[in-house]
């Protein structure tokens, strides 16, 4: 049976209150907020705000939309509102304890590559407009279908297609540029190898 969370069956018409949604999808929402470009410092507040809005809307009733894309629409709106109202200093980002982390890697080298790859993805995402970014993230990174995205965001599926199309072109263009650049980690790795070589 399809589920809407770790142990919640997806029964049409069933109701999920804010806490049930939080238990099932808080990690998704936090991750999604970061992929939308929210700063780590803002994530706890935004996370709480998303589920408070979900509560205000009376919770989620299983229907055509999925809880994840339904929450994504709220998160997108909440994050956009916050972005309009908050101007953070760039250096604040360096102090964020909350951030996207790559999956665990077997070796330090793989971990470094994962960090670099994730950084390229985030920078390429930064090149997208918010409307395109939300569609791209949901489709390419979160694995949602275009139909689910359309229902969740309340937009025609054709609009999802067109935004995804435009987002892909822009993302690929920027990613290609970034992939050609030497990264900080690469430079650090190179220095580390040079030092190791000198010491050998």
């Amino acid at each position, binding site marked *: 049976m399809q589920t809407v969370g770790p142990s919640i069956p997806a029964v049409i018409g069933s109701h999920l209150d804010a806490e049930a949604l939080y238990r099932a999808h808080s990690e998704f929402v936090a991750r999604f907020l970061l992929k939308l470009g929210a700063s780590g410092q803002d994530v706890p507040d935004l996370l709480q705000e998303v589920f408070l809005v979900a509560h205000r809307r009376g*919770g989620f009733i299983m229907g055509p939309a999925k809880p994840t894309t339904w929450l994504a629409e709220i998160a997108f709106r909440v994050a956009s509102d916050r972005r309009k109202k908050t101007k953070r200093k760039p250096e604040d980002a360096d102090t964020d304890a909350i951030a996207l982390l790559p999956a665990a890697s077997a070796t330090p080298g793989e971990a470094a590559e994962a960090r670099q790859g994730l950084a390229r993805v985030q920078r390429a995402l930064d090149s997208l407009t918010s409307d395109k970014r939300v569609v791209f993230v949901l489709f*390419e990174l979160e694995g949602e279908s275009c139909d689910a995205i359309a229902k969740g965001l309340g937009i025609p599926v054709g609009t999802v297609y067109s935004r995804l199309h435009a987002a892909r072109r822009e993302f690929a263009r920027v990613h290609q540029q970034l992939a050609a650049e030497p990264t900080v980690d690469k430079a650090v790795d190179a220095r580390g190898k040079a030092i190791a070589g000198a010491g050998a």
Partner: protein
Amino acid sequence: MSESDITTESLMDGQEPVRWLDDPTAASGLRTDLLHGATATAGGVDYGATLTALRGVITAQTGALAPAAIAGKSIGLKLALGGALAIGAAAAWWATRDDGAKNTVAVKHEPAAQLDVEPAAATKAVVDVARAPVSPTPAVAADPIPEPSIDVDPAPPTEPTGPTEPAEPPVPSEKVRKPKPTTDHPESDDDRFLREAQLVAQARKQLGTNPQQALASTRKHDREFPKGALVEEARALEIRALAKLGRMDDAQRKADDFLREFGDGAHASAVRRAIAGDDDVQ
């Protein structure tokens, strides 16, 4: 043409596109990086503390304990959490009140007895949240709740339904009656936004049970926040309320204007459904 361009071509033919991660024709470097993005997790988030804070705000609002959360931006969250700990006493107080009160706010969502966080753990969570870095702008959830009655459960309305004549009634006084905070400073942008969000949330909630009141709330929004951040949603709710009231001419006229301005917006489909008589909101 790059591989990425090739893979995007299928998007425009109306077929569900293939994720780049699943598309062997996509550039391998791109797929590798996307895999890192797809498998990344949000590190450093204290989900337990945030859940405790969320419960606190919800119970504070639902139990009409908003004054506990009104004290100020920097301490609002802590006070709201304090409200969570105090909700047991508040729930008992509500339970012993005269049941017939019209302004009773149903305490259904999060009674304190259901909280599975031990008081000590909750207190720790308060401290954790208080220590956690917060943005200069406090969360809406932690902000003052000037109109706590908007966040009642989606239970049948306790107030009498509005009149049946087309003219929308004023928003019932018990819905908006609250003592004005005796602040020494003017309303901040955040406070104003919160009031606007609450008014729109109220309209959204009323739409399913009392479209006449929903319409009144949207009109109030239009008067108080003509250039607010939620104008689009408020206007969509107004159209949906009109349609639910059978005022299709008005709804159609406003929908035409709305769709010209927000035709690609998040609420356009809901507006289209409403004027097509297919608004399934409960």
